[in-house]
């Protein structure tokens, strides 16, 4: 019953302590990290916006294990903040289903950052509600969180030895108790056991030992079964495929969502709710040449039906490309589908395209990228270098040819877009100045009414009234300083593509960086 929206089938939610949680993590237990849905290899959620009158930057560190604890860090700009609270609201639980908010503590040594752990009990789409109270009143920010289980914790070596030691002791103890029970327990006080009794005790100990070992073997198989079940419930990327078709002298990219979770006659049969447009487009598809990441495309395929999408190909050079397709479900669950595709040489006659499609084959630079008309896009890199988990690294400035700061125009509802990819394709994320979250996920989580029970009704209403259109529902700075709240999740060589619109034209700049 109650199949949840967009949640992989996972073993049910009880609970027990987390005494050693930190200890286990700190002692270097390594997790098996697989791809995650919302983005690839980049599990944390970043959000920059406002909670009422307070500008906030929020980081939700994914628990990885579900049910588990997500760490929320809230940075509030300005004075007079008295309290920050947070609570997770499941998409389907309704207003009465929100647990009492947890009060955040100040981060030690900081006066503007607050932190609080939140329990995420089941996979799925959540709105994390962050409420800031202070001298300017109260305000709430809604951060969409697509919670998925991504890993199994390996056992720490020391803990393993400790448990194994206890286990051996308990085993020997159990066998000895069996022996003592047979040998002496029924004797009247003062009598010593005769040789026959001693012999029987030894037999009993042998038999008991074998019995306990059999129990342990059964336990081992059981453990394996639980482990297998859990790993099966881990988030896996959905199956998808991309291919190229010729049509009217041009090339079309066809993208298909081939996953079994997306099959079914009706929405109720599917494991996920319908797709909704984000920045006015149902799908944002990115192409990156696999060999050298030297060619990049950002397309907006239109849907032929619920599984097939199609877009005319821009004149990208031939070769094998990685495909990343970002979609948002009606529940607010954001998902990235991946595939690879072999592109042929560009067709002579290009077919008509979405004016917001963009592609780039120019030079990759370290910090100063050329734009049209002699202007540049400058990555304000800090010294000494980029580090894992270091926030605030992605700040860019548009400089006109005379050195003044230039302006940008809205592109797909944002002042800028950035795509961050590690060169091996194992890390991928699509960023905006508002963070990693999908703008329309925020809209659906805010606008959902109790009556929106049938799948599709909420998305249709919000599409019809324009709430999910390309224009943003929030103010944005269009002066040429653009920063993306993000921290690199892992070491490696990265590419960053930044897309902005100036004078009606979308321009792309490509940067490279090494993160240590």
């Amino acid at each position, binding site marked *: 019953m109650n199949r949840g929206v967009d949640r992989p089938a996972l073993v049910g939610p009880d609970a027990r302590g987390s005494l050693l949680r930190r200890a286990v993590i700190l002692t270097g237990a390594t997790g098996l990290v697989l791809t995650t849905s919302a983005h690839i290899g980049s599990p944390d959620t970043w959000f920059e916006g406002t909670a009422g009158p307070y500008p906030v930057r929020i980081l939700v560190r994914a628990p990885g294990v579900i049910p588990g604890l997500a760490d929320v860090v809230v940075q509030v700009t300005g004075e007079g903040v008295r309290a920050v609270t947070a609570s997770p609201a499941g998409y389907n639980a309704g207003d009465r289903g929100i647990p009492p908010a947890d009060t955040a503590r100040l981060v030690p040594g900081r006066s503007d950052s607050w932190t609080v752990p939140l329990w995420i009990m089941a996979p799925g789409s959540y709105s994390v509600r962050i409420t800031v109270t202070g001298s300017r009143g109260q305000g709430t920010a809604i951060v969409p969180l697509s919670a998925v289980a991504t890993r199994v914790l390996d056992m720490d070596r020391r803990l393993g030895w400790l448990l194994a030691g206890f286990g051996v*002791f308990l085993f020997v103890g159990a066998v000895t108790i069996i022996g003592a*029970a047979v040998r002496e327990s029924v004797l009247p006080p003062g009598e010593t056991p005769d040789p026959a009794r001693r012999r029987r005790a030894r037999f009993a100990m042998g038999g008991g030992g074998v019995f306990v070992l059999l129990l342990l073997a059964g336990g081992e198989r059981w453990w394996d079964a639980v482990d297998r079940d859990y790993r099966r419930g881990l988030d896996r990327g959905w199956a998808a495929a991309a291919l190229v078709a010729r049509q009217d002298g041009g090339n079309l990219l066809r993208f298909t969502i081939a996953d079994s979770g997306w099959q079914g006659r009706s929405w109720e049969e599917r494991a996920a709710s319908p797709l909704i447009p984000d920045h006015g487009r149902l799908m944002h598809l990115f192409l990156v040449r696999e060999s050298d990441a030297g060619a990049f495309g950002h397309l907006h395929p239109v849907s032929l039906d619920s599984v097939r999408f199609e877009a005319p190909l821009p004149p990208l050079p031939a070769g094998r490309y990685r495909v990343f397709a970002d979609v948002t479900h009606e529940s607010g669950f954001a998902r990235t589908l991946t595939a690879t595709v072999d592109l042929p040489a560009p067709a002579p006659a290009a077919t008509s395209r979405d004016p917001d499609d963009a592609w780039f084959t120019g030079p990759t630079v370290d910090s100063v990228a050329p734009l049209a008309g002699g202007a540049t896009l400058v990555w304000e890199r800090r010294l000494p270098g980029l580090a894992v988990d270091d926030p605030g690294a992605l700040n860019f400035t548009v400089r006109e040819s005379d050195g003044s700061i230039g302006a940008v125009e809205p592109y797909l509802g944002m002042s800028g877009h950035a795509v961050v990819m590690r060169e091996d394709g194992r890390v991928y994320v699509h960023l905006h100045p508002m963070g990693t979250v999908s703008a329309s996920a925020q809209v659906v989580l805010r606008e959902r009414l109790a009556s929106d029970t049938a799948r599709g009704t909420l998305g249709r209403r919000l599409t019809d009234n324009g709430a999910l259109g390309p224009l943003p529902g929030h103010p944005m700075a269009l002066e040429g300083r653009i920063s993306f709240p993000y921290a690199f999740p892992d070491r490696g060589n990265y590419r960053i593509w930044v897309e902005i619109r100036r004078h009606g034209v979308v321009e792309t700049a490509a940067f490279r960086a090494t993160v240590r």
Partner: protein
Amino acid sequence: MYAVVVAAALIAIGLTWDISWHRSVGRDTFWTAPHLVEYVAALLVGMSCGWLILKNSFGGASAERSQMVSFWGFRGPLGAWVCVWGSLAMLTSAPFDNWWHNAYGLDVKIVSPPHILLLLGMLGIVAGALLMALAAQNRAPAGGSPGFAATFALSGAILLLLLVTATFEYTGFPNLWRGRLFYQVSAAVFSVLLAAVARAGRLRWPATITALLFMGASLVLSWALEHVPATPRLAPINNPVTHLVAAPFPILLVAPALIFDVLVRRLGDGHDWRLAGLLGAGFVVAFLAVSWPASGFLLSPAARNRVFLADQWDYSVRLGSWRYEYWDGIRNGRMPLRPVLSGFAKGLAIAMLFGAASSRVGLAWGSWMRRVRR
């Protein structure tokens, strides 16, 4: 010995409270009150038995020492050794369980490998208490040991409470009381203890009294817990409860226990195989005769009050008409299925076989317990 029995009772209370906590509040750290009760009890047992063993190993009157069993050169009562083993198993399960939850997430299941280890530890402590009471009962002259015999019945009741809790997912809800699985699990798990108590107890109705004590303790705990205010603290909350969710009305083990007492006394010793067969059949018939009508009552509106404890559900479940339907089993939380009557008779026959095998083991265990003196 009394310290150990008190600790055993504390463990049972802590466990019941803990489960109720998880069904109502959800939020959990190691440092919740029910956990503290459980682990303080484990420490109490470990230390008092450890002290008893050390005292008898390195001193103590020789009359006392002669009532002990030796173990790696130490001397102590058998029950104390079992208790020490139990408390060590409980303490081992804590870090194991903690790791488990970090690796696989917090689970609502009672039956998981670390929980089984914890439960074995708890069973060890209670069984140790039982053995200590038993040795005292058996050393005392016949007819002159009502105190020890009552302590034995009490320990048996605590053990029964633990077993019922362990099988809660298969037997706990009245919705299950018309399914085959309920009778099969009950016959397999409870017959062994009832048969052993019926044989080894020196009270007039040992199994019956043990079952009554269990039902009484369970009811008192539930009646107390449901008056404790509680608020769910974990999303998603599909059923906003305002007080701790208590366990449903306890299973009616008193009926089969009465049959066990009668049969064990009637047939006496020496016919244990035949007796076990009768006990298996008797268990199922007596249990069916009371559970079937009782489940009808407990699912009716008349039972939805604080006395009969019906219709109390976890904060995380979506309420529905399944609450008042019969289920054929539970998997992955609460999964109601259509009422299944087909194959019911065959299911009951299997339950009788389980009951007979379980009773046979129980009788052997009881015969041994009757002779335990150390």
